[in-house]
């Protein structure tokens, strides 16, 4: 809170307390009214405190807890029969969904790790003898959790293709397009390598996300350590990415941001159907939406592609995203058949 507003609230509280006292005179009332009338900011601050203060009067219903005139111990009210009646109106049970989803996700990871321990004996034999190949694709708007034969798991975002080759010495995954989050089962003898946009993203046992948009590549590491190196490099130009790294790779090179692990995890909000954009080029933001919507957005003016956007969006609510772009930027969106074309609008956005 700013100093000014803090001061207003503090003064409002003093008035409230004084008015509540026994020595409240007509002069006090006049001074108080003058204070209220001098600014709407004063009035609303007081009304707000006054409402809460009067709400507290409802507690008189609990006066029966203890002897009159005494203050019961904290939590004593919980013993009152009133609070222990069977609930006829169940509390709000909503919002169980996201946590439920998260729980399933945790279970899935646990299962993957468990499978490694359990099956390591047989896998050892398979690993030395056999190569597993599989191809996984998701359609636009789809999301899929894939369990790989080595016990690792991959969550595929929409419009994504993954080719998996589990060999004796290396576990290779080609991210042909799209984005995937990898939960890698530990296996020191076989590095786990994701190939994307001419880079190798190498992990031993960790959790990281790789996304490829055209020639742009992004790697987010939420656990463990990942090495990022050009596919044709010799390891000297490798970049080490500890947990909490967000690496952006483009023609210009590799840029790594180190953030908290929580913030890194936010970058993976697509799993919950959200896009969390932070200072993201419009082109990247559009690519994320296009993985989730049949109606594809294209950027007609190259000048718009580098516009930075931020925000928290539902990926399936493309309409709201486009509407906001139009409101906040000099952008005009044209609906054309199955697509939306973004162009630079003439002039500047209108005031609200």
């Amino acid at each position: 809170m700013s100093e000014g507003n803090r001061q207003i609230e503090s003064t409002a509280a003093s008035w409230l307390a004084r008015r509540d006292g026994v020595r409240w005179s007509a002069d006090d009332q006049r001074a108080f009214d003058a204070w209220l009338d001098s600014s709407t900011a004063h009035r609303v601050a007081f009304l707000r405190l006054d409402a809460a203060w009067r709400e507290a009067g409802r507690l008189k219903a609990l006066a029966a807890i203890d002897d009159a005139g005494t203050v019961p111990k904290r939590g004593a009210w919980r013993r009152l029969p009133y609070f222990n009646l069977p609930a006829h109106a169940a509390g709000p049970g909503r919002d169980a969904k996201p946590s439920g989803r998260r729980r399933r996700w945790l279970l899935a990871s646990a299962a993957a790790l468990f499978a490694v321990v359990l099956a390591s004996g047989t896998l050892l034999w398979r690993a030395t003898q056999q190569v597993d190949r599989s191809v996984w694709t998701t359609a636009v708007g789809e999301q899929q959790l894939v369990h790989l034969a080595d016990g690792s798991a991959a969550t595929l975002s929409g419009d994504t293709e993954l080719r998996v080759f589990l060999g004796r010495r290396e576990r290779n995954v080609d991210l042909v397009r799209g984005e995937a989050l990898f939960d890698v089962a530990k296996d020191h003898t076989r590095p786990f390598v994701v190939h994307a946009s001419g880079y190798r993203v190498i992990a031993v046992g960790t959790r990281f996300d790789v996304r490829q948009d055209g020639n742009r590549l992004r790697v987010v590491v939420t656990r463990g350590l990942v090495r990022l190196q050009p596919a044709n490099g010799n390891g000297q130009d490798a970049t080490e990415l500890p947990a909490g790294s967000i690496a952006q790779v483009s023609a210009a090179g590799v840029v790594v941001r180190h953030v908290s692990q929580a913030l890194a995890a936010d970058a993976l909000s697509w799993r919950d159907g959200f896009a969390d954009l932070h200072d993201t080029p419009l082109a990247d933001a559009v690519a994320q939406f296009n993985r989730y919507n049949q109606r594809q957005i294209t950027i007609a003016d190259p000048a718009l592609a580098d516009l930075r956007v931020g925000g928290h969006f539902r990926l399936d609510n493309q309409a709201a995203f486009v509407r906001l772009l139009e409101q906040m930027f000099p952008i005009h969106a044209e609906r054309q058949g199955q697509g939306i074309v973004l162009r630079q609008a003439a002039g500047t956005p209108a005031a609200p």
Partner: protein
Amino acid sequence: MNPDLDAWFEREILMHEPALMRFLHRHWRDHDEVADLRQDVYVRVYDAAARSRPASPKSFLFTVARNLLADRVRRQHVVSITVMGDLDELNVLVDELDPSRFAGSRERLRRLAEVIDQLPARCREVVWLRRVEDLPQKEIARRLGISEKTVEKHIAKGSRLLAARLNAPVPAATTDRGAAVNSLSSDRTT
């Protein structure tokens, strides 16, 4: 001075504060500024309602909040629509969220009792004796062996803490999802 307007403001606007706080927390990264934003929203709504009462107070409140955030973003020279998030979430908020505070008198009372329990010890005693036992400030001072001025200070402090905590974003909002959103730091410049 307009007692009708004051009553209207409390009944139609202030009651939505938990939902408003959730909205602001969700759409504005710098949480230190949320209380100021709330205050600005109230000023705008009150002034507008003094001229003419909006037909639908709740949607008016959130429209004002949204416009305020949009103004702020334009003034900061950061090209970001962070604050705007998803406009359609507004409907979710308006329709679903505040019932958890106003679910029923028992739930409301329970919430109130919990909030009172969280007050600092002396402050809690004063608030309890004043609001529940209805003792005059003078008598409270005598019983607790403190000055009347101190009683007054506890009441002032108590009213602020009550307002803040009773109106904290509704618990249903602070699930994983909400927490994740709220944890976004301001990395506007990278």
